[in-house]
């Protein structure tokens, strides 16, 4: 056999080898059967929130995509310059100049406008900060008491760092309440959300602002408002007042605080 013939033969074998390597996928079995389940799917639901203060514009949790369903720029509930000690624990009917009210509407919906959530959720609220400061314009008498005190979540006289230590003697901090209402805020529910009272509407109690702040100030220390159905709306009136037994050292003080409304599956 000539060398030329041998070369041809070897080249042929190489070609066969190459073809075998490319066709191996289809030769792992001669007989086979196969079935496929296409189109299996799992779809997630959604939890969205809309916040409105005093019937004003809506603040949507999903307004800014980059913030991933968190909106920290909603309307300030109130900005009351002057509060006076109340004479009765029964909240006066608004409009009222001696106490501060804010009507807040929470809806389980978001953007696009009126896009309801599809999942039920637990609604919760907490106060991430309560900062006390002297109000230099309040008058000559500056009491020096902390209106956010006392908080009791961190031990006597100890609150989150933003507040600083409270005086060891009680100075009575501001009164604070959360009352649930019907749509239109015309009828209060028969119970008080905070301070919790399952049988009676809210009344103003001393030190409740500090109590709320001290206990519910982050997403691991939140105050549960219970469930909110997908698409449902709940109405809350927040009240702040100076205690009946307010002392002079509470004069000229300012409390600045925020609310975080949070929904979780």
């Amino acid at each position: 056999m000539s060398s030329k013939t041998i070369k041809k033969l070897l080249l042929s074998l190489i070609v066969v080898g190459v073809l075998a390597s490319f066709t191996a996928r289809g030769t792992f079995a001669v007989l086979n059967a196969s079935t496929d389940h296409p189109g299996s799917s799992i779809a997630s639901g959604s939890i969205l929130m809309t916040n409105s203060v005093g019937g004003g514009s809506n603040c949507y949790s999903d307004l800014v995509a980059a913030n991933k369903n968190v909106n920290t720029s909603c309307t300030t509930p109130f900005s009351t310059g002057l509060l006076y000690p109340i004479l009765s624990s029964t909240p006066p009917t608004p409009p009222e100049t001696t106490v501060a009210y804010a009507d807040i509407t929470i809806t389980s919906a978001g953007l696009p406008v009126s896009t309801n959530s599809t999942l039920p959720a637990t609604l919760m609220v907490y106060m991430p900060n309560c900062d006390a400061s002297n109000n230099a314009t309040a008058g000559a008498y500056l009491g020096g008491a902390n209106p956010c005190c006392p908080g009791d979540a961190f031990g006597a006289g100890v609150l989150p760092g933003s507040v600083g230590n409270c005086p060891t003697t009680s100075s009575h901090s501001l009164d604070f309440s959360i009352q649930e209402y019907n749509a239109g805020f015309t009828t209060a529910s028969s119970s008080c959300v905070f301070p919790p009272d399952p049988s009676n509407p809210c009344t103003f109690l001393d030190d409740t602002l500090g109590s709320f702040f001290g206990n519910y100030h982050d997403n691991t220390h939140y105050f549960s408002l219970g469930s909110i159905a997908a698409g449902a709306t709940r109405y809350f009136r927040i009240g702040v007042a100076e205690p009946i037994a307010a002392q002079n050292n509470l004069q000229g003080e300012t409390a600045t605080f925020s609310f975080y409304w949070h929904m979780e599956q």
Partner: protein
Amino acid sequence: MKNLQTYRLGASLIASAAPRQSRPTARVEETPALPAEAPASETPRTRRATTGGKTLLALLALGVIATLAAVEATGAVHNGYIRLASFGAAILVAAGALAAVAVAFTGRRRPAGATPAVTAATSSGRKSFSPTKAILMLMMLVGVVAYFGGAGTFAGFTAQTTNPNSTLGSGSLLIQNTVNANPVCESKVGESNNNVNANCTALFGFTNQEPGVFSGVSTVTIKNSGTLPASTMYLWAPYANGVLGSTITSGNSVTSLTLYGSGHGPAGLEGTVTSGDHILVTYGGNSQTFVASAGAVAGATTINVNSLTATATFQAGATVEDLDSNTSAASTNCYDTQLVNLGFNSTTNNPLCSGSVLFVQETTGGFNYCWWGSGAGSANGQCDAPISSNPASVSGGVVAAGAYTVSALQGNIKSGDTLQFTESANKVTCPASSDYYYGATSITVGACTLVSGANSGFNSSAVITDTSSLTRIGSDTTHNISKFDQTAGYANKIELTPVTANGTKTPNGTDLASNATRTFVVGVIIAGSNAAAPANAQNQLQQLKSTFGLVWHIDQ
């Protein structure tokens, strides 16, 4: 003399194929006696002396042809074309031989100046029929006769037996695939005409799901309805794929592949295609690979490809697979779509596919094995499959240690897991006393602890969940659908060897005998928050939908 030796070689070859031919020389000897009747006026011929070699070669060629014809006549040649060629050659030879004999016997005058030998032969003024030529003609004739009539004259005495009607019947490997109580899906009726059915029932269509909450499961029964045992049975994630919706005709130039949008399997393209990907189209025994000339999004019904001539006809219904898919989270068979654009719920890299844990647990014959999912390969055969069950009753409304009859578990409970009883705001936890498997209707728990509310008021509407299982699922980052596609695709398919006990599989043996069935529970759940996917990150999973497939396959 030299010529005669050559001719004898030809005769010998013929004789070997047609042994009954004999005594050719007798015919040769008769040849000189044949009268030469060439007309006197014929032009003298001088070519014989100068073309003897050519004549010899021509005659030799005739001999070879006749020999081939004879050999073919023995039946040794099976190629149809060769047989036909031999037959034609034989006809030509026969015609030539007859013509030659006729011419030879007709005779011709010798030209002047012929060689002495020729002169002797033409002394009578006519050409004598050359013995050599006569012999050759005879040999040719013998060959022709052998071709047409030799078969029946092989021997005087013969014996023969025949074994007729021998048959060879092939067996079959067929799959019958049943999801829950849906109609049976058979591999043999697959539109791709190759025992592949890409249009079986979807495993589930869970909607409005939330992380860490029980979704549900489907049961899949796989039966080998064929006649052959399947030595291997596989589970794998399909490539990004679709079903050809428009026939491709052999020889036509193909620049795009049209896919069915519904009703034939995947709704359009299941997955995505990237430009340059290799797209395999298969129908029956034919397949051809095209190269995508542009990307195609999930759900697309057209894949543009570089122009290529179809090597076969691919009917509508052919399978279309992207062989370069399943290599990253962005190229998996599982794909996410946005149900509502919330602004923050992007589908880039299919986040819900990556956030949803898939599990496949076998339950055949009461033996469990976790083939895929959190807990895969566990000693007790359990996947971490969540439960959401209800007690038939709670004695006194108080959850306490003891046995409870419950609605059939749709998941598993591992011994020691924390079971939480929830009734409105009341929550009580108790440890599981043993392993409990899918379908169990009775569980026993140990001493219980109040978590919130009060340990009172519990009844049959209470919900029992396995918080330990949910925690394990929430921590699993390797068994989501995206990982399934990337690590358990065709190249890394999971062989489903027989399971002989809970958590025990045999390495050898037939995976699925003829008419045998195997049963699996398949579930998926959006994993709860964990270190890898904290709660705030999961916000991005809202209003998304993951769509995917799953393949069951058997081999001989």
